[in-house]
């Protein structure tokens, strides 16, 4: 039973999504909510069990239907994958709680789509095969297309058109990249690719490089790398609140894929293909960070602010990939967990502010006060502290780790200023946002909207992870460091050397 556990994070949401479309559940909001709540709880349990497994054993490869590696479809559970699964389970759990307060009824099929979205995300984290990475990307994308327009509206349709078309072009690029890689490597299994990378024929090197860089474009589009990030702020700011919060993990799927493909396969052990992405990532990641900071300072609404913070955190994370050391990857992993959960919390808070302020929504203008200024202000304050990177909370630890990972050579000179300035910029824009939204109020509120207890629970749950990440910071940094070493120490020991396909196909 436990050896099949690895498939649960994909299978559970798939089955749940299908059953939610069938009569006993379809059309009954309460039953659907309870069902998805239970599935999310099970996902949490299985993610914890998988993390435990990955701590006790070497990375495990699970062959679907027992077709042998490297031909069968492989799922891999190592520390990195298990951490990401736990992250998506926590996020999904909290965001779904928030959605149950009423946002799920603004359009049809919220719950099944939510399940399919989680299935795609979990699958992308677990897959050990680059073609299945594509398949799971498509699953999470098509669910996200529909979730994006959940609730409808002009703004949303327009943002969705850009998002969908861009991602369809991205998928075409992904397939081109896959084709080139299969033609040169003769395999699509990531562990097997890592073996082959150092042994490619010299005439195939250029082609393989092109394939690897095509994948960089695709993952860059997902992860919001500079020239490819323009879709992000508008998409995230215009979608419904719980969906935006769930999307906080979508850019991280891109980062994760970069780790899997460009850190592991095209990493140190790649021979002539070693570190092909690093030269491109350095300037682009720095530029992403700078562009994110500028956009952050120009934000006009709280949701836009949160979306621009996602870009800033993507820039910081891409920098850790460009640094390309286990320490940097570990710092990136810690920062990734922190920034995903805190951005999601900020999106949820922005949703509450938007509902309570009536006409002014979450725009930074003088208007009527919110109905629960103390509660929302307090939550906003904590989220802001964490996201700016102030001492008691996880943002501070995350930034310290990032700065430490830069070392003290010339890398540090490039990395310290933008990271520190991004903290300052966040501080400035958060003070402006906080004072405008909560203090510069006039008149009395015209609506009686108050936050639902479930919404508050969800936000508190997300915010509590921040002090938890500090209190158990030692354990967590150790864990992320060993996950990073596991990632960098490729080829993965999952295929014994004698089982790797001996030669590239004719």
């Amino acid at each position, binding site marked *: 039973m436990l050896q099949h556990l690895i498939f649960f994070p994909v299978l559970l949401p798939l089955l749940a999504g299908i059953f939610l479309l069938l009569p006993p559940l379809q059309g009954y909001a309460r039953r659907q909510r309870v069902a998805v709540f239970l599935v999310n709880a099970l996902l949490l349990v299985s993610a914890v069990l998988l993390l435990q497994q990955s701590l006790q054993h070497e990375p495990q490869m699970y062959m679907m239907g027992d077709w042998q590696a490297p031909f069968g479809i492989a799922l891999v559970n190592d520390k990195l994958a298990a951490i990401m699964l736990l992250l998506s389970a926590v996020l999904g759990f909290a965001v779904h709680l928030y959605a149950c307060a009423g946002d799920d009824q603004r359009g049809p099929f919220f719950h099944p789509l939510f399940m399919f979205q989680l299935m795609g995300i979990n699958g992308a984290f677990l897959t050990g095969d680059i073609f299945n990475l594509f398949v799971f990307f498509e699953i999470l994308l098509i669910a996200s297309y529909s979730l994006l*327009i959940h609730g409808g509206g*002009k703004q949303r*349709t327009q943002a969705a058109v850009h998002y969908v*078309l861009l991602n369809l072009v991205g*998928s*075409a690029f992904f397939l081109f990249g896959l*084709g080139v890689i299969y*033609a040169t490597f003769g395999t699509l299994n990531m562990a097997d690719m890592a073996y082959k990378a150092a042994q490619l024929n010299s005439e195939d090197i250029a082609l393989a490089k092109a394939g690897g860089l095509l994948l960089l474009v695709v993952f860059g589009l997902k992860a919001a790398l500079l020239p490819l990030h323009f879709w992000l702020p508008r998409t995230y700011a215009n979608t419904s609140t719980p969906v935006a919060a769930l999307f906080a993990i979508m850019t991280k799927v891109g980062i994760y894929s970069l780790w899997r493909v460009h850190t592991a396969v095209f990493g140190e052990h790649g021979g002539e293909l070693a570190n092909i992405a690093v030269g491109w990532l350095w300037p682009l990641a720095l530029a992403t960070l700078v562009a994110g900071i500028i956009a952050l300072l120009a934000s006009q609404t709280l949701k836009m602010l949160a979306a621009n913070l996602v870009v800033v955190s993507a820039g910081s994370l891409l920098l850790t990939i460009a640094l390309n050391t286990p320490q940097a990857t570990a710092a990136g992993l810690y920062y990734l967990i922190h920034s995903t959960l805190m951005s999601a919390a900020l999106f949820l808070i922005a949703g509450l502010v938007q509902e309570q302020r009536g006409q002014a929504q979450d725009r930074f203008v003088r208007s009527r006060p919110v109905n629960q200024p103390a509660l929302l202000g307090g939550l906003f304050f904590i989220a802001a502290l964490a996201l700016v990177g102030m001492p008691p909370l996880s943002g501070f630890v995350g930034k310290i780790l990032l700065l430490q990972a830069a070392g003290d050579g010339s890398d540090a000179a490039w990395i310290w200023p933008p990271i520190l300035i991004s903290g300052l910029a966040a501080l400035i824009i958060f003070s402006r946002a906080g004072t405008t939204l909560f203090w510069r109020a006039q008149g009395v509120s015209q609506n009686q909207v108050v936050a639902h207890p479930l919404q508050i629970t969800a936000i508190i749950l997300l915010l509590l992870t921040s002090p938890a990440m500090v209190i158990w910071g030692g354990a967590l940094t150790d864990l992320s460091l060993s996950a990073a070493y596991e990632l960098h120490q490729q080829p993965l020991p999952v295929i014994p050397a004698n089982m790797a396909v001996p030669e590239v196909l004719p």
Partner: protein
Amino acid sequence: METIYAICVGIMTAGGVFLVLRGYTFAVVLGLTLLSYAVNLFLFASGRLVVNGAAILGESEVYADPLPQALVLTAIVIGFAMTAFALILALRARADLGNDQVDGDND
């Protein structure tokens, strides 16, 4: 054979990219369709082109690589679904925004 094949895929890709870069949803959807045709052919060729070879071991001296054929099958299904979705979304955008410009502006 390889040259003609490569030229065909190249022309299709170029046409697809040109259409995708047009600012109107109908042209973009057509471009995406062309692009996905080109991708499918490209994937198919990634296992090398073989004439008179079944994708079965032991049937004949030469055999075609079966994996790209399986990949193409998956890619076709996904591409088809995605194009259908993009088309519906384009229609919805046409209704919501009043025109078929991807940015929603008429000029």
